[in-house]
């Protein structure tokens, strides 16, 4: 194998590994919405006031998955 092939292989393996992080963010988002529904079904009157916080938590959690995806994209297209 030539040097650039090894580099390419490393790039693709690294991008694949980095994409695992998006799955981890998926666990986070699932927990977030699951817990929200759990609370919302117990006390539906509180839903209105907490919706903003739910969306805020979603955006912050999702951003971490996006960071992982960004690393994958950087490895694929920019390195």
């Amino acid at each position, binding site marked *: 194998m030539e040097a650039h092939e090894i580099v390419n292989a490393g790039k693709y393996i690294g991008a694949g590994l980095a994409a695992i992080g998006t799955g981890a963010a998926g666990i986070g988002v699932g927990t977030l919405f699951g817990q929200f529904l759990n609370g919302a079904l117990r006390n539906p009157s509180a839903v209105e006031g907490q919706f903003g916080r739910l*969306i*805020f938590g*979603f955006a*912050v959690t*999702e951003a971490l998955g*996006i960071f992982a*995806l960004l690393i994958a994209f950087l490895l694929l*297209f920019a390195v």
Partner: protein
Amino acid sequence: MAGEAGPAINPIEQFSLLKILHITVGPFDVSITNSTIYMMIAVGLSCGLMAIGARGTTGAPTRLQAASEMAYEFVAGMVRSAAGEHGMRFFPMVFCLFIFILMCNVVGLIPFSFTVTAQIIVTVLLALMVFCTVVVVGIKEHGLHFFKLFVPSGVPIYILPLVVAIEIISFLSRPLSHSVRLFANMLAGHITLNVFGGFCVMLLSAGAVLKVVSVLPFAMIIGLYALELLVAFLQAYVFTMLTCMYLNDALHPGH
């Protein structure tokens, strides 16, 4: 195997800066780029919306007036709830940030346009502006008491050094996470759209059976577009919400 036949698509080509008008002042390159033009469009749109909205009508409010009032109420409510009545002094700054980022994100979603907020230099400067405002306001308002921010009350003395170190690191890393969050969301969203668009093109230029399959990535693009519209709004909201929280730290340090 079929992918080899299609044209090569570079998903990060859309973020390249193109100089449209070359201007150099001394050692600085202040050329008008496509980024500058889209920023001007965003500023123009937000100013236009607010100018029309604030003009006032004799009868029932128009749609644009309702939209601008909703935006005002939304941001004012956010500032009040996160930074308190004191924070309303910073309402103009927070409102400008929100409208500017929202307009940049939404304008960037128009096909063939350019996303200003997917340039890290733009988001870093916005985040650094907020960071510097927080530090300057905090020190001006509270002097040395501002540094109480790093010393939470009710922490046992033997773990206090560790907590203070963590607080300082988290405070200093704020502009980083603040800017990268917006940048990465916009960048990754646009790359994903472009990659799925590339799938579509590849499948269309492949065999006859595969042409039918190209409906699948196209449907995915439509779904992603809806998500991106949500993300464009959410990231503007999150950016301003965090700005309010940081301003709250400057106005009321010491937890």
